[in-house]
């Protein structure tokens, strides 16, 4: 994705991760990395998929993405248990660059503490942290 974009409906973590919570099923969050993160990394060549059922903790890294020249921790914006992994990015990690908010999602998590979402940033606040 060539142009920086930060969809308004998502929640953001300062370590460059996003969460999507669909109000139809608020117990599940979809997680991924932001445009800024994939742009800094360069073309992603490898995504180490964590195991289903793994517990993730807010603010702690739960996996890594690699480009040729860099490795980056992926931090969980919310706590919970991994219930689905995006096989598309396992097979084609470049999708994380192409469509970081859509087809490039990483995992889905069953939230253990939905109230944690209050601590996350909205798009405008997150964008402000990038220029700081």
């Amino acid at each position: 994705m060539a142009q920086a974009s930060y969809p308004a409906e998502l929640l953001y973590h300062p370590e460059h991760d996003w969460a999507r919570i669909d109000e139809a099923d608020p117990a599940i969050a979809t997680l991924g990395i932001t445009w800024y993160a994939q742009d800094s990394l360069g073309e992603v060549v490898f995504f180490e998929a964590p195991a289903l059922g793994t517990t993730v903790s807010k603010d702690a890294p739960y996996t890594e993405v690699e480009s040729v020249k860099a490795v980056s921790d992926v931090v969980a914006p919310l706590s919970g248990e991994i219930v689905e992994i995006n096989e598309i990015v396992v097979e084609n990690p470049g999708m994380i660059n192409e469509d970081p908010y859509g087809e490039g999602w990483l995992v889905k998590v069953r939230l253990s503490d939905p109230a944690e979402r209050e601590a996350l940033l909205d798009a405008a606040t997150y964008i402000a942290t990038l220029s700081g």
Partner: protein
Amino acid sequence: MLAAIGVGSVQEIFDRQIPAPVRLGRPLQLPDGLPEQDVFEHLRALASRNTSAEDELSFLGAGMYDHYVPALIDMLTERSEFLTPYTPYQPEISQGTLQVMFEYQTAIAELTGLAVSNASVYEGPSAVAAAGYLATLHNGRRRFVVSAGLHPHSIQTLRTNAHGYDAEVVEVPLRDGVTDLDAWSEAIDGDTSAAIFAQPNFYGAVEDAAALSAAAKAAADPVVVAQVDPITLGVLAPPGDCGVDVAVGEGQPLGNRLDFGGPSFGLFAAREEYLRRMPGRIAGETVDVDGRRGFVLTLQTREQHIRREKATSNICTAQALNALAGVVYLAWLGRRGIVELGELLLARTHYAREQLGAFPGVEKLHEQPVVREFALRLDADVAAVRRRCVERGVNPGVDAHALSGREEDRGVLLVAITERRTRADIDRLVEILGAAVASERRETVAV
């Protein structure tokens, strides 16, 4: 030059940067520099005070062996283009180095029967330690089960490294010269990170690698590691076919000199699933912007310069020049040659062991198959016997107890056979060793 820099003297550059209290302020107390010819004479004089394989008939082994290094290896490793470049960080002008690495990786993968090989690590024992670290990264466990047939230096190096990350090393004894299978199975549990054995083992015996791997996997799921002697892989079943996950080994026998123990290289190969945990450099194939085939360092995100504290190891070096010698040697031996060499070693080793074992006071330590090295138990003091042999120009082999420190190794001599040891040489060894043992036994009896 000083004018361009804007200083009055070189001293000024230092005075402006190094605080006075830490300036040395006196000359280094070292001998004065010498012209090249004097340095040469000095180094030659030192060399003359060493008894090398050129000066005596040597049957020393136990990890490094006096094989014949063909002349073309010296010629290639002395070439400026191979000897003097740096690590290939600019691949466009390092295709020679990178292609050699790629060819070496291919050769080692073929030899070991495992899918992936790196471009080499330092040497044998530290390769065993590196395999242990890989296992720990892979399964998070902190216990290593090792056969007592592993080279003592490998066990010691593993212990030193394991202490760094609080891992335990447990030894499994041998029975009849090979790893005790029952004790091996019993020792391996759900906390075991890796199970490690040698092939052939320290006493020259061929282990039942397939049985050891199967037993390990039946007991729990450790990473199975074998330390192999690459020159035997023309005749012995490759570790990849025996259920081994990671094969490591001392590469010196492949085209490298003895050099009093180094430099050489360590081979490191593994199943595909361990690729991203492998230490060391790896060369990969790719294309350039015009579609030309080329090679680059790849999977660098495992390594220290990118992953830093999360690296698969801290290794910065491949033993590139030594690995070059290794791959050229393997090409020189070729598909048939490595088999023929192995069969020659088998025949001569068998002959030597049978001849020696027939002598009074000398017996085979075990009856297991051997390929290029074997162990004898002498009914005499090994050190004294060796001294007598050396006085007559024959170095009969390694005093196992002196190397391992194990009580059960008292009286044990390790004898190594290479293709340079002819039948006449072996006959001479038999004569002299036999006489030495006989003399020592007489003396002991007399006392």
